[in-house]
């Protein structure tokens, strides 16, 4: 039997094809094998068929266009249009409904469908008809309910676009150097200051740069009262004063400035008033007073509690204003008398104090003074 044998050709041909498709039974495979071994032309034919099959199997699948999926899915979600059948149903419903509503009553005296819509009964019938229409429309699928899954990740019906996003750089990853300082210079005040010629000049000064580094000065700058003081016009004037500048440099004054009692005195309202007093200011300028202030004994006297009480005494304050007493204080003999211990004892004596107040005795003292001088 050969391929040229028409009677057997169909059978062998079928075996060949089934062999390629892997559906021959063992017996059929063996039969084919025997035939091929005997008939070279069949073998060649089979080989070609196999080759074609393999070649067909190697054909690569074609990639569809990237937009295909989108187009298909979009079509699925598109609002449905009427199919012909649905349109027919809808038309029938409308037609019937219209007839029910608008049939001419006069045309017939029989119980026509329109009679159904008259009176109280008519209301129920009409309502029912409306409900039926709505149900038909809904079930016809003309208004499919929205798929709840469509509403996931949306603003009121807006679908959020899909975009790849990975973990991002965070604030902790941005480590800056002295960011605080950089933010400080954003201030309008700083920028105005920076443009100021005078500030630029002083900024270059080495001592100013040192001062800025000083911790105490930094604390002072924070102090609200100091900030107020800086605004004060009088203080600004004072700063310019050469004598004040000298005072600031003075070591003794610097010590005094540190003293707590001194600080308290500075805060005292009465002292502040005194400081404003013109006479006091004159006194401060007086050279003799300045000498007195340097005197150690006087410094001790000022600390004496009894003397401090005396200074508060109104009568003594009046006495100090008295011109005669001022003259007396200059008198050397009186100064000697004041040092005298017996006189100091006499001054303590209560009877002597009463005598001093006596008007007659005062007249007697005056006469004695006249006679002495």
């Amino acid at each position, binding site marked *: 039997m050969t391929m040229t044998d028409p009677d057997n050709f169909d059978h062998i041909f079928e075996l060949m094809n089934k062999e390629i498709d892997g559906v021959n039974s063992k017996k059929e495979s063996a039969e084919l094998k025997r035939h091929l071994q005997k008939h070279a032309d069949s073998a060649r034919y089979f080989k070609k068929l196999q080759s074609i099959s393999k070649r067909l199997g190697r054909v690569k699948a074609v990639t569809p266009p990237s937009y295909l999926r989108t187009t298909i899915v*979009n079509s699925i979600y598109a609002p449905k249009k009427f199919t012909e059948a649905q349109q027919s149903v809808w038309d029938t419903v409308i037609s019937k409904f219209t007839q029910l509503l608008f049939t001419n009553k006069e045309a017939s005296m029989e119980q026509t469908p329109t009679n159904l819509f008259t009176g109280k009964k008519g209301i129920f019938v009409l309502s029912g008809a409306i409900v039926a229409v709505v149900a038909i429309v809904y079930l016809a699928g003309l208004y499919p309910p929205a798929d709840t899954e469509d509403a996931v990740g949306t603003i009121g019906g807006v679908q959020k676009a*899909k975009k790849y996003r990975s973990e991002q750089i965070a*604030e902790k990853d941005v480590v800056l150097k002295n960011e605080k300082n950089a933010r400080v210079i954003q201030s*309008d005040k700083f920028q105005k200051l920076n443009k100021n010629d005078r500030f630029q000049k002083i900024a270059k000064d080495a001592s100013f740069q040192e001062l800025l580094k000083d911790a105490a000065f930094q604390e002072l700058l924070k102090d609200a009262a100091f900030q107020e003081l800086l605004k004060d016009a009088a203080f600004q004037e004072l700063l310019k004063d050469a004598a004040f500048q000298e005072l600031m440099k003075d070591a003794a004054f610097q010590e005094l400035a540190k003293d707590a009692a001194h600080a308290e005195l500075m805060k005292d309202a009465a002292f502040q008033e005194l400081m404003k007093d013109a006479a006091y200011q004159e006194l401060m300028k007086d050279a003799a007073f300045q000498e007195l202030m340097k005197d150690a004994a006087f410094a001790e006297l000022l600390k004496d509690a009894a003397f401090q009480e005396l200074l508060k005494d109104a009568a003594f304050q009046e006495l100090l204003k008295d011109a005669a007493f001022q003259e007396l204080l200059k008198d050397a003999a009186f100064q000697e008398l004041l040092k005298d211990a017996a006189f100091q004892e006499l001054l303590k004596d209560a009877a002597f104090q009463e005598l001093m107040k006596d008007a007659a005795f005062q007249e007697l003292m005056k006469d004695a003074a006249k006679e002495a001088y």
Partner: protein
Amino acid sequence: MQRVQKILAAFAYAWLLQSAPAFSQLSSLETKNLRLISYDRSHAFVVPHLARCFENAFRFHSKLFSYTPTEEVTLLLQDFGDYGNGGATAVPFNLISVGISPFHYAYETSPANERMNALMNHELVHIVALDRASESDRLFQSLFSGKIVPTRENPLSMLYSYLTTPRRYSPRWYHEGIASFLETWMDGGIGRALGAYDEMVFRTMVRDSAYIYDYVGLESEGTTIDFQVKANSYLYGTRFMNFVAYQYGPERLIQWVSRTDESRRFFASQFEHVFGVSLEQAWSDWITFERRWQQANLDSIRLHPVSRHRELSPQTLGSVSRAFYDKSQKKIYAAINYPGQVAHIAAMKIDDGAVEHICDVKGGALYYVSSLAYDSSSRVLFYTTDNNKWRDLNMVDVETGVSKLLIQDARTGDLAFNHADKSLWGVRHFIGFSTLVRIPPPYTDWNQVYTLPYGKDLFDIDIAADGKTLTGALAEVSGNQKLIQMDIQKLMKGDHSSEIIFDFDSNSPATFVFSPDGRFSFGTSYYSGVSNIFRYDFEKKSMVALTNCETGYFRPIPVSDDSLIAFNYTGTGFVPVMLTNREQEHVSAINFLGQAVVERHPIVTQWKLDPPSESSINIDSLTTYSGEYRPIDHIKVTSLYPMVEGYKDFASFGLRMNASDPILINEIDLSTSYSPNALLPAGERLHARLNLHSWRWRFLATYNAADFYDLFGPTKTSRKGYSAGVQYREFLVFDEPKTMDYLVTGSAYWGLERLPDFQNVSIKSFDRFLSVSGRLNYQYFMRSIGAVEEETGFRWQMISHNNYVNGVLFPRLLSNLDYGFLLPVSHSSIWLRGSSGYSFGEREEAFAKFYFGGFGNNWIDYLDSKRFREYYSFPGVELNEIGGTNYGKLTLEWTLPPLRFRRFGVQSFYMNWMHLSLFASGLSTNFDNPSLKQTAVNVGGQLDCKLVMFSTQESTLSFGYAVAWRDHLPSSTKEFMISLKLLK
């Protein structure tokens, strides 16, 4: 490279003009791979972080591209503009310039995440793409001692440059495309490859069946005339890269861009080598693909009813700013910028769309033009100028058009007007921070309200009519953006707490504005991938969509309860439209091509960079130096190559050497050559030229000066003899485009046989002289989008030439005045150019004269192609033929609109445009002596053709023709000129 050079030049001048000397000192931080230079100590806070970002990105690129740099990268940190930017070059040095300011987020064209990180990711791609060298590149670099910068003085340098850095000669879309593509994945999905604006641009093109440029036409026309100008390089480039990555895989994209030993020199050849198809075919495939892709997106949008609008103007307005509606006048006020007209503030009537010009905007920005705010009670607009530099604050009366500068260098934008107390609010950018500021009347000073932490930014602010609430968009370090509101009273007391209205995630809440009654806020977002209008209800605390747009709606203005005005994006710009204020129930999302790339090729997710944290990058341990930077200490040879020059009628062969520091403050240029021809006397065979440049100073010395272009004639600049000169230039006003500068030059010449400036004038009575000249120049020119040169403006020059010869001084004085204005036809101008001069010397002396004649162009040239505009030119007459000791000259010139070509050539060589100028001049010399007086008139024209070779090498081919009549000659004389100017 040109952009980086401009930045460096600006840096040099700005650094020197600093009014705060306390901060003016260059400092650097160096690692093995980096030299980070800053000129302002106030920038120091960000230096370590920037260095970390650099090292982080550098590690990534080194690995991805198997990249070893030829040298360290110099990174210049600057604050030249109120909005951040970056630029990079690798020729002659690896150099990146980084702006410290926050980005502008208009239309989401810039990323909103931390900008130093994003910039380093992007700019280093440029360095790698340009600097990565093959074995042959390295061989040539070694041979020529560096990466050659092509110079017009020696055009052979073009060839050498191509041999040393071939990838420099690829178009901008290629470089920007790959940088934007990679940056997106490195930033974890933030970037143009996933950009909604990009999708919108191409979706609109497909919808409108607009022309999509091919890759030649894009460079020729698409990056010059479109209202988006150079941004088209980013758009097309990123898009094409996305497509190639999608179709062929991102790894093969990297293979295309990498300059390996096996790669092809020219980028287009390499494309074919990697992908097996020509670039032209692939580009065509992309366009076919894009049409299908965008059609599917349009189908998506059209699933639900598309919003209908009424166009309010028959013309598109190009780029547009925030706009305001004047109900009483029925006008919209906005700043607009479109091709053919300079940026300006306009009023548009909504009834008929008529547009009235109110005032020009100097320095309009690309997308947003200017920041605007409106005081409706006084009918005054506040606006910013110099928007690409340090913004100035101005105001203009919309009725009269009279404008006034309020605060120079206010550096403030995102303006909002508080009608309650008449104060103006804005966001100020200064040394990298954003500060909310308040500017009270009379608007001459600003007050800080709140400075945001670094990395956070506030933009698009608005204030309710009652003056109680401020809203704005807040961008975080991560790039997340939220719409927030703040209480104004609290802000004034120092409480800057805010309430989040809506978290838009990675989408920008753009230009949200209050309704007049304060109940709502209207703005836009790309939430669905398309820019649609949203409305926030303050009472219900809900956000709803109002539109479903095919392209995009922007900048809404609520007009009434039922309508609003917005701007609709089209391919030629924005069109104002009227819309209904009604909720849109459903809006479908579109698909992003970048998203398809991610899904098909997840490898791009592996390109996500870890953050540049302190723990992963210890910059202290990497630092090799930190301290003062002196440019002069870092000068090195950048190139050494053979050259040929012309000396008189002979050729001369020699070498040229260039040296400079990395930021090009100091430059040395030395050339020597030898003419072997025996016809030349021995004393004239050797030639040398030395050119030194440092800051404002320039020093030039020559010996038997030769010139390449003398090989081609007829103009000869080579001269026998010696010369030495020094030049100093200083700016008195530097407020570009308005500048005033002076230039002083002192030179000495000896051993001469001809005048240095006039080749046809020989000298016999002397061979040496001294020359001192000075020039004072004031100019203010402007051009519109799509222009090929300046189109309107003014220039005045005063020039003094003083020659000292044989004990006699010959002073000459001349003045030039140019004035031009735009015609109603786009890109067409009329110019009036006047010049007059007087010489105080004896008429018989050559030095005492002015000489005129000829176009002045050489057949092969490197000087300005339009030399017919120079005072000494007079086309139609021989060079230097007309002379005189005094003169007056007037030229009327009409420049016609350029003719641009979409595609006239191939990738490696094409013509960009043709430009025709027609002129007529009159010249008269020796007014004071009727017998010697000469008068001439001419008419002529010049046609210039811009040619581009290998993407970046521009040249100009010029054709000129003129006819001249002179008073004592019976017939006219003619001149025909043809000239090829190499390199621009």
